[in-house]
């Protein structure tokens, strides 16, 4: 048996978190705690890169699979494995966690050890969600992840943190418990048709599910994921959670947690219930488009930078859902790519906002102005990340949005046209904010702000480098994604009713893709 690399990815942060108990939570240990947890997080990142290096990009199968019985009487197993989609999301998780830890070095001074433990446990649970191939295991990680995030927001957040953390937790949970029932229903269906319980994703993929049940199961799954994404109109927890969370929490929330909703759609909801998925796809797309435009419009009027970025997430994630709903190669590939992009660029934006608010202790746009003269390096980084978020060609955002719009156009041009206005709007609100913060006259309070410190350079350089890399060499990232996306689409097509296939949904890949 080969080395259980995926298990080690889940276990390593947990062991690291437990090892932190060895360091007493005192003032003079603070740096040691921070360094130790950073080392653990970087080690995890290194393992994710190793995973990528050993990943066979040409294959669409699940790789590095480990399978052990867990609760055998109910067919529950510890079953993990990854394909191209989860691979890159795991790498993203590994990439963002050290950044989240490092960005809190100066801003978290209360209970530092518990903070680092929460971040590491959160990382373990997030990786667990992406590697699970057993629905029960997936649900366990999915729910367990809420606890550290709840504490991160609730303990180390800003003023209204208690309200925001509770709202985050209850919203997410309300959605996911219904998914739990749907999972149980699926396993029971497997029991009645195949004679044994199974929560194994691959076994359930091939389970024929009656259409009326697909309908309900899909709704339950989609609700859980839609709340997580968050899809309009389930997004109201997001601005609160983002605004009140500490910078590390926002980075992880935007960077990874939101992706779990879209990941869940790609991995579970669509392939498990193809008939219902094809039926509901236009409705999802409609909500996604509403979310794109609504999020952008609301972002435009926000006086608070963090809230602006939060609403921009609603808009950007709308693109991802739209791409998934197209159910064609470009759309879904673009959606997966956009998941990564959003993690990088929005994570970067939250970092910048965090740096500014560390300096000035305010996030109001109107308090700033003319920073270009005071902190030129910070502003340069700000500009690059802003442009990447808008989707400037040459940076990462462009590739994803372009693919999504291409796919949408082939499917339903109306949606594409409406969604494209979102691109314009995003340029408007982002650039407008950038302009108000960085140009104009320098007020007295801003005159003495320090420029980037070495630690902050270390945070921003990798983010920017990755943004450029993903913009210039998209194929590096699309290569592992492509076979997995094809397999997922194949899965959906096989189960979808024939008339849906005939109506032009099935777009053949075009040249140049």
């Amino acid at each position, binding site marked *: 048996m080969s080395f259980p690399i995926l298990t080690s990815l889940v276990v390593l942060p947990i062991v690291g978190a437990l090892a932190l108990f060895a360091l007493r939570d005192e003032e003079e240990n603070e740096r040691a705690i921070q360094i130790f947890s950073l080392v653990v997080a970087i080690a995890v990142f290194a393992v994710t890169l190793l995973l990528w290096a050993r990943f066979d990009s040409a294959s669409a199968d699940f790789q590095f699979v480990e399978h052990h*019985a*867990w*609760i*055998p*009487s*109910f067919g529950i197993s510890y079953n993990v494995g990854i394909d191209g989609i989860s691979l890159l999301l795991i790498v993203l998780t590994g990439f963002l966690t050290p950044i989240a830890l490092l960005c809190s070095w100066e801003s978290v001074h209360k209970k530092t050890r518990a903070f680092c433990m929460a971040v590491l446990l959160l990382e373990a649970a997030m990786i667990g969600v992406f590697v699970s191939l057993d629905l*029960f295991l997936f*649900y*366990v*990680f999915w*729910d*367990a992840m*809420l*606890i550290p995030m*709840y*504490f991160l927001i*609730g*303990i180390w957040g800003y003023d209204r*943190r*208690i309200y925001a*953390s*509770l709202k985050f*937790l*209850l919203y997410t*949970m*309300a959605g996911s*418990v*219904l998914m*739990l*029932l749907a999972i*149980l*229903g699926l*396993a*029971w269906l497997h*029991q009645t048709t195949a004679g044994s319980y199974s929560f194994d994703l691959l076994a359930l993929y091939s389970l024929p599910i009656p259409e009326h049940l697909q309908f309900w199961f899909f709704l339950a799954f989609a609700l859980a994921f839609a709340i997580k994404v968050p899809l309009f109109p389930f997004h109201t927890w997001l601005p609160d959670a983002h605004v009140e969370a500490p910078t590390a929490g926002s980075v992880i929330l935007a960077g990874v947690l939101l992706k779990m909703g879209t990941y869940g759609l790609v991995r579970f909801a669509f392939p498990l219930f193809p008939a219902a998925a094809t039926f509901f796809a236009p409705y999802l797309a409609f909500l996604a488009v509403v979310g794109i435009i609504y999020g952008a419009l609301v972002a435009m009027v926000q006086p608070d930078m963090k809230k602006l970025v939060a609403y921009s997430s609603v808009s950007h994630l709308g693109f991802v859902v739209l791409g998934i709903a197209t159910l064609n190669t470009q759309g879904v590939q673009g959606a997966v790519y956009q998941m990564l992009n959003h993690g990088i660029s929005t994570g970067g934006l939250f970092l910048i906002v965090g740096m500014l608010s560390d300096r000035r202790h305010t996030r109001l746009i109107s308090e700033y102005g003319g920073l270009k003269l005071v902190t030129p390096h910070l502003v340069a980084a700000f500009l690059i990340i802003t442009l990447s978020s808008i989707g400037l060609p040459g940076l990462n955002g462009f590739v994803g949005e372009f693919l999504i719009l291409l796919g949408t156009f082939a499917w339903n041009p109306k949606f594409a046209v409406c969604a494209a206005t979102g691109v314009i709007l995003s340029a408007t609100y982002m650039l407008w904010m950038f302009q108000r913060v960085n140009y104009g006259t320098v007020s007295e309070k801003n005159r003495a702000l320090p420029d980037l410190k070495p630690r902050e350079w270390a945070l921003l350089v990798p983010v920017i480098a990755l943004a450029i890399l993903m913009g210039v060499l998209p194929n590096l990232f699309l290569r592992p994604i492509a076979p997995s996306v094809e397999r997922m689409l194949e899965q959906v097509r096989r189960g979808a009713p024939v008339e849906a296939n005939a109506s032009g949904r099935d777009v053949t890949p075009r040249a140049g893709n």
Partner: protein
Amino acid sequence: MACVVAAAIAAIVAEAFRAPGERMPIGPLGAIGLIGAAVASFLLWDHHAVSFGVVSADNYALFVTFILIAVGLLSLALAGPVIERQGLPVGEYYALLLFSLGGMILMAMATDLIVIFLALEVLSIGVYVLTGIRRDSPASVEAAFKYFLLGAFASAFFLYGIAFTYGVTGSTRLDRIGTVIAAQAMSPSPMQLLAMGLLFVGFAFKVAAVPFHMWTPDAYEGAPPSVTGFMSTGVKAAAFAAFARVFLSALAPMHGEWSHVVWVIAAMTMILGTVVGVAQTSVKRMLAYSSIAHSGYLLVALLSANSSGKSAILFYLATYALTNLGAFGVIGLLEQRDAANDQLTDYAGLWYTQPVLAALMTVFLLSLGGFPPFGGFIAKWFIFTSAIEAGQTWLAIIGVLTSVVSVFFYLRVIVQMYMTSSTAPLRLPPVPLVAGVALVASAIGVLYLGVLPAQVIDWAAASIGTIF
């Protein structure tokens, strides 16, 4: 037979230290008795010993006995600081605790309605007195009085139920009742329905199902926390054991009749327990309502009446016992001679002054709320599995939604402990070693049941598979 062994050990040990003075190491004696009972039950596993045809030490009863012994051991360990602080009579406390524990074990093993009634009374009387053991506290006396009055009513109902059942079937033995009822192909007579209803009321009272739950919040609040922990877990486990035995074996042929009633009661219990729980400001009352809600979940499993439902009851009882005892153990440690410290605001900033206690409480609360990776999640999952299997989708939906509501009030305690700073932090004496070990042990147990539940699930399934 095992019952006699177990109950006798408990009783003899209890008797033995009633005589000696105050300064005897009484707690350990009780613990030894319980460990003896555990060994006896272990040896009897799979033997299916039957005494006089009315007491049966089948694996089902033994599984419940194990739960009860764990409850007993933890209660003994956690009672120490409370007794010392409140100046409670040591000998009486332990003796009553062990007597009622003996009653509980007998209840789990009884296969005759009369014996069930006897066991019910043995356990109840012990618990009534324990509830009021703080004689100088009006709240405690009031709680005991309320509990006793309502409990006496419920016992009377139960006894009437037995009488009517005897009138209809000519026996009080569960197996004979079952045969007689099953033999009647037609729909049951009104008399039979009445008998069933009366028995149901008796059980519903003991497990605190709505609308027979009125005594719960007062009794839980008034009793010393160590007693509350004991009665919320022990009484519930014993009562549910007998409840399930009566309704799933003797009255199983009438499932069609009682299932509607249980459906409504289960739904009401879950909803009322959680919704009213939200409004509580006292942590003890909140846990009382949470205990009501948990009875609702157990009723869902009872209603499902399939094999996973039956083992779900056992697994749930085991998890709930560990979790709730742990939670009340923490409450007991926070209580002081002059202050109950059971208001939500008393928990403010606990994490900063008592990080370990706060962390343990968090584990118990999250498990009660049904979060993975704690036992409470697996227990709830098991119950909902049984509900889905039985086609009770709506009940399952009510169940999961109410459990989200319940998360809200469990989190209120966590909010206080972690996210609120206290103006007057609690000054607590150091935690006694035995109580600390007991708390850590239950936390580890809760985690074990959450991460590696397969073994216990299989035991539960095996133990219930042997009887009904």
